[in-house]
């Protein structure tokens, strides 16, 4: 059982992840958008955070910037799951610059999501 935060601007996707995760016995907190995500990250600690990149207003990169600067969030485990297709060089840059543990491209199904959750 893991305590997981899902940050995505698409409410349907957030709900889907929550359904999948909870049906597998995990605890899932959702944040609809980057701003809500940062608030959640500040309020408590999570075993794992699933973060979308392309979000209006506060983007995934903005969230990562925030996490990078906050010493209290140093231990946060963040996995990026994105529907946009970052080029390999962009992905490499994000991997290098921010404290993330993986970068996964959507589409992502139940099997794949649970596989990722269980591997960290």
């Amino acid at each position, binding site marked *: 059982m893991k305590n997981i935060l899902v940050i995505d601007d698409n409410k*349907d996707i957030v709900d889907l992840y929550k359904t999948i995760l909870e049906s597998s016995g995990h605890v899932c907190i959702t944040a609809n958008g980057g701003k809500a995500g940062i608030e959640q990250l500040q309020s408590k600690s999570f075993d794992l955070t699933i973060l979308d990149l392309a979000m209006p207003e506060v983007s995934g990169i903005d969230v990562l910037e925030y996490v990078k600067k906050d010493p209290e969030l140093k231990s946060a485990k963040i996995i990026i799951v994105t529907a946009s297709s970052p080029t390999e060089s962009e992905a490499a840059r994000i991997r290098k610059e921010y404290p993330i543990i993986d970068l996964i491209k959507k*589409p992502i199904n*139940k099997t794949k999501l649970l596989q990722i959750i269980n591997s960290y």
Partner: protein
Amino acid sequence: MDYAKIVNLLGIIILIVGAIVVLGWIFHIDVLKSGFSGAITMKFGVAISFVCTGVSFLFITRKRGGNAALAQIGLPASTLIIIMLPIVNSISVFLGGNISIAMLFINEPISSFTSTPRPSEGAFVSFILIAAAFILSLSDFARMQNLLIVFGVIIGVIGGAALIGYAISMPILYYYINSVGTAMSIHTAALFVLSGTSLILLGYDKKHAAYLKTIRVKTKLISLFLLTSVIPNFFLAIITYILIRDFETIRPFGYSFAIFATVTSIMVGFFAFFLSKEIVTPIIGLRNAANKIAEGNLDVKANENTSDEIGQLAKTFNDMVDSMKLSTKLETDRLLQIDKDKEEFAAMVSHELKTPLIPISGYAELFLDGSMGNITPIQKEKLQIMYENSIRLTTLIQDILDARKIELGKLKLDIQSESVRNIAKRCIDIFRPISEQKGITLTNKTDDIIVTCDPDRVLQVFNNVVSNAMKFVPTQHGTISINSRVDDGSVVLSITDNGPGIPKEKQQSLFKRFYQVDKSLTRKSGGTGLGLAISRGIIESHGGKIWVESEENQGSTISFTLPLENSK
């Protein structure tokens, strides 16, 4: 036939004969002057003119090579002398005296000349025409080459008539008319025939025309200066003659006159050289700048040192280049912006189309695996259709984006070292549930060979090929196997199936976009026709190749190569 070589040879003959006669005059050897004893002598001025004519022929046949520079200055100079001599002689006719260049140089009393030192009228005409031909050759004569032939014919006829006159003993033909015409000597006549022939050959020489077209502006200017400089010298000669009217008195001044004429010519030559350089250099600079622009280099400036017409032209030219640069930059920026917009649009389409599909396929999956509670078998069957189609749509979107990337050459590879067996295993893991359901045997017979590749992209190739095979192999006893072998520095990976095979004539088109082997099969098998085209793009990006081997009703094998790890 190389006319230029013949003209060269004729030029040398004319030069040598002329030189021999000149030596005859200087050293008083009568036989050299007349050809044979007792014959009419070639006049001193005529001999000098022939030397110059021979030299001019040699110069004019020099192609644009190492000798071109010499020819460009030498030709106007020799032409100048040819034109000067008959003019001096014709002036003497008008002034009523027996004036000749010979009298200035040959230290003999006038009475000792066997005939008048004045050349024949035929020689006048011929030399004027020869000089005119050379002057025209220095200007843009290439378009008037036929005129060379006309001049050549006239000169040849003048010389030929004289020769015939000698042959049939008819003095009038060699211009001997008592107290009116001066006889043309036999070797003079022969040399005119040769000169005329040379001019005719030049007129027919097409290769030579190329040289005539390339006469430089500088050469033309130098010729102009040199030719105009002749006029003061003539005035000097005429005034001297009018004042003194006695050649016995003038003769001692002959050498100083010659030296004076030479010095003034050299000075004029120098001035001509520098003045023409002054005019031509900025033009050459402009031409070079224009050449660079034609090559696509816009970072050039023409020299604007002077404020004369050429300087103004250079300034206009530079302004023009600046505005070209500006508009080129604007155009480039515009194209870059369009490119950027297209990229952003593609990224947006990718994101916006894929996102709604995630909850659709995601929830369908949850319903199908029972996470959302029990559903009836008929509901399950229809949900399966929804699920499969949403997956298909997702794949299609991804395929279109990939195909576009490949077409634009923007497919980026994340190159790593990976075992082909691992990639094949990942592929088989993906297809195992479906293959088990359909009773198809999937086997991984690959060896643990390490290749340098983008594993995700290579997996995509495996998936495309295997999913194609899955559509065509018979259910229950279909077999698909993945094999590997090393061949000449690369790994050959083959996917073999026992499907219906692909007809030979359709194998060529298999890797083309949107190609479907059989439209009726399409309905049964589905697919976008992009998979194999993308696969080819991916393999070619790795520097490999992909091909098919198949016999109808005997299955097919699709193979591709990947570079071995240490081969790079």
